Structure formats: C-alpha cells, structure tokens
C-alpha cells in the first residue's frame, strides 16, 4: 500500500467528500435555496423600507448563513457513520484530526462557499453599498469556515442520537455567537465610517484558533460517540 503524507491524506478526504457531494447535488442546492428563502422572507416580514433593510442587511445575511450551515451539519458525519466508513477511518493509521479537518474543509466548500458567493446578490436586494458588500464578503469568507468547524464538534457529539438535528442547533448556536457579532460588527463599522481592522483581526484570530483546536476536539468527540 502506498503511504500517504498528511497533506495527501487531507486532499484525498476533501476530494472524496466533494465527489460524494456532487453525486447528491440536491442536498447542496437545498441548503442554498434555504439561505436565499430565509433572507428573502425578511423584507416581506418587516416591510420594504429601504433605510431599515439596509441597516439590518448584514445581520439578516449572517443569521441566515448560520442557520443554513446548521442544516447541512447533520450530514457531515452521519452518512459515513451509517455505512461504517467512519469506523474504518478511525481504525486508519493516519491521524483522525487530519481526516476530520479534511471533512470540515469539504463541508465548507459545499455549504459555506456557495453562501458566500450568493451573498452579494442578496445584499443588493437589501440595497447595501458596494463597500459594505465587500466587507460582508470578507467577513463571511473568514467566518463561515469557523461555523463549519464549531459545528463539526456538535455534529460529532450528537452522532446517531434521536432528535440529533434540533439538539445540534441547541449546542452549536451559542458557541457561534461571537462569529456573528464580529461579522456584523465589521459591516456596521464600515457603514458608519469606522475602521474595520479590529473586527477582521478578531475574526481571523477566531479562525486560526478554530483551525488549531476544533479538529482535535471533534476527533475526541467522534471517539466518544463511536464507542
């Protein structure tokens, strides 16, 4: 058997999960459609006044992104858990944290990245300025991977439980609040002419911290769940 390096393993897991996701395109699309629908519901719910919509646009987009990433989290490990692949992965000689990191990255590319790409269009619906849109996109680019990574901990903890989906949101949403605060804070700062560097640095710091700790914590959680 060919020995795979750490990076090779990471790329292998990402490629595998992406192929699996492409085979079931409907799953990816439903998350995206959910995102678009939630965002479009807000103007209908609060009324079409542009001034108000412009103010709440960033918050609405962020909350919708948070909710739609919750939707797809349940699938992160469940398919592999059900057909036994996950067990094989845990028996593999390679580091489980690395495998988990690969799965997180694939999950983000499938469910986070489309949202980021979709966000400018939706932002225009809310009449956001170009500057604010730019900041929103950078914020989402930094923030959505954190959501996927924190969510993976919850997904691993609730693996195979009844009512896992609701429980997952209950566990993960409180932990995601800081990301939401800094993400929307940055857009608010640029709209009122303030410096966005502090918000962005904090988001970046959260991303780096999450990148270091969450794969390991998730691997531990998977070990607990698979016993």
């Amino acid at each position: 058997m060919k020995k795979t390096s750490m990076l090779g393993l990471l790329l292998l897991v990402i490629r595998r999960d992406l192929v699996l996701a492409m085979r079931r395109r409907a799953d990816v699309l439903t998350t995206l459609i959910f995102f678009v629908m939630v965002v479009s519901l807000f103007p209908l719910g609060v009324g079409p006044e542009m001034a108000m919509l412009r103010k709440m646009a960033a918050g609405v987009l962020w909350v919708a992104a948070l909710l739609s990433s919750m939707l797809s989290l349940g699938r992160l490990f469940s398919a592999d858990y059900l057909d036994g692949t996950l067990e094989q992965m845990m028996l593999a000689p390679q580091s489980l944290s690395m495998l988990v990191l690969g799965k997180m990255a694939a999950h983000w590319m499938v469910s986070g990245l489309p949202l980021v790409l979709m966000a400018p269009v939706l932002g225009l619906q809310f009449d956001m300025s170009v500057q604010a849109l730019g900041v929103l996109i950078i914020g989402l680019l930094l923030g959505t991977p954190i959501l996927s990574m924190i969510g993976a901990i919850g997904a691993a903890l609730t693996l195979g439980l009844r009512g896992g989906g609701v429980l997952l949101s209950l566990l993960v949403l409180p932990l995601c609040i800081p990301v939401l605060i800094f993400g929307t804070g940055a857009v608010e700062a640029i709209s009122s002419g303030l410096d966005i560097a502090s918000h962005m640095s904090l988001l970046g710091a959260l991303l780096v911290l999450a990148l270091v700790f969450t794969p390991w914590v998730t691997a531990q959680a998977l070990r607990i769940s698979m016993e």
Partner: protein
Amino acid sequence: MIPWFAVSAAILFAVGLYIGFYVAPVDAVQGEFYRIIFIHVPASILSMFLYLIMAGYAALGLIFKTRLSSMMATAMAPTGALFAFISLWTGALWGKPMWGAWWMWDARLTSELILLFLYLGFIALHASIDDPRRADRAAALLAIVGSVNVPIIYFSVKWWNTLHQGSTIKFTGTSMHVSMQQAMFTMLFACWFYAIAVVLARVRSIILERERNTTWIADLPEVKS
C-alpha cells in the same frame, strides 16, 4: 452533610435578607431598587463559578474516567442553570427602573445569556443520550469547550465599555456601606451553601439511580426495610 448545609443556607438567607432589607441604608442614587443586588450578585457569581467547577469535574471524569466526578458535573448543571436564570431575571427587574428597559444587548448580559444556553445544552445533550457513560463523556467535552465563555463574562465589563457597571467590591477595598457589604457576603455564603446542599442531594439520587443493580445498594438499610 446535606442537612448541615441546608440549615446553614436557610439561616444565612434569613440573616442576609434581614440585613439587606432592614439594616442596609437606602442608596443615594438608586433608592430602594438597589436591594435586588443582594440576590443578583451572588446568583451571577455562582452561575459562573458553578460552570467552572462543573467543567472541572467533567474534565476529571473525562480524563481519569472517575464516575463520581461525572455524576457531580451532571448534578451541578441544573443548579447552575437556575442561578444563571435568577441572575438574568433579577437583572431585568432591576434594569426596568434603572435603565428604563428590561433588557439591553450589552456584552455582559449577552454572555450571561449564552452561559444559560450552555447549561441548557449540557443538560439536553446529557438527557438525550441513553448510555450514561457516553452521555457523561459527550457532555463533558461540551462543558469544556463552553468554559471559554466564563472569563468573557467576567471581564466583559472591563473589556467593553458597556452599560453594566463594574464590580464595586475589590480586594483593595470597597466604596460600599459596611452593612450593604455584610448583607451581600451573607447572601453569597447562603447561596453557596444552598448550592452545595442541593448538588449533594442530587448527586446522591444520581448515584442511587445508576448503581441500583449493585450489591451495596441492596444492602442499604433503607432499601432492605
């Protein structure tokens, strides 16, 4: 042990409330409303400390696989959630006359709310896993991840300039009236003793429930008769 703590908690509550309501003078700025701090501050302190202790016990249970520490963590969660709720509730009652609003999206309030959600998440996760050992370990991991929040609550008043005032009591001395201070500390100890009594009572039932198939429980005089 439980009756001792329960009785001393009751006495301290009575003394603390007496000092708080009859001895402590009326505050110059806030009038009578400030008296709610006698329950608000101890409840907030306990909600944070209990979370840390719970996470500590959970970590012990996770690392050394000691069953009792996991049971202690499980037993502490409802009490901690109760104190977090009391703290938010009394804060709201105080905020209405003082700030003119029940709720402000202030850093400390929000993070205390997150703390309540973390307690609830811990309880919910534990409740939804049937195998108690797996439940202990999964909930322990969640508690440890969530403990990041506690320092944020504690320092939020210093880090962000928000509406919630900083603490008046410092190790170097305080600007409070002596009887106010006495009332506050009495109530703090009362809350501690209450928490200890309740947690010990709860952990006893958890032990009895989990070990119901062992011989030592069958040998207990209460069970035999």
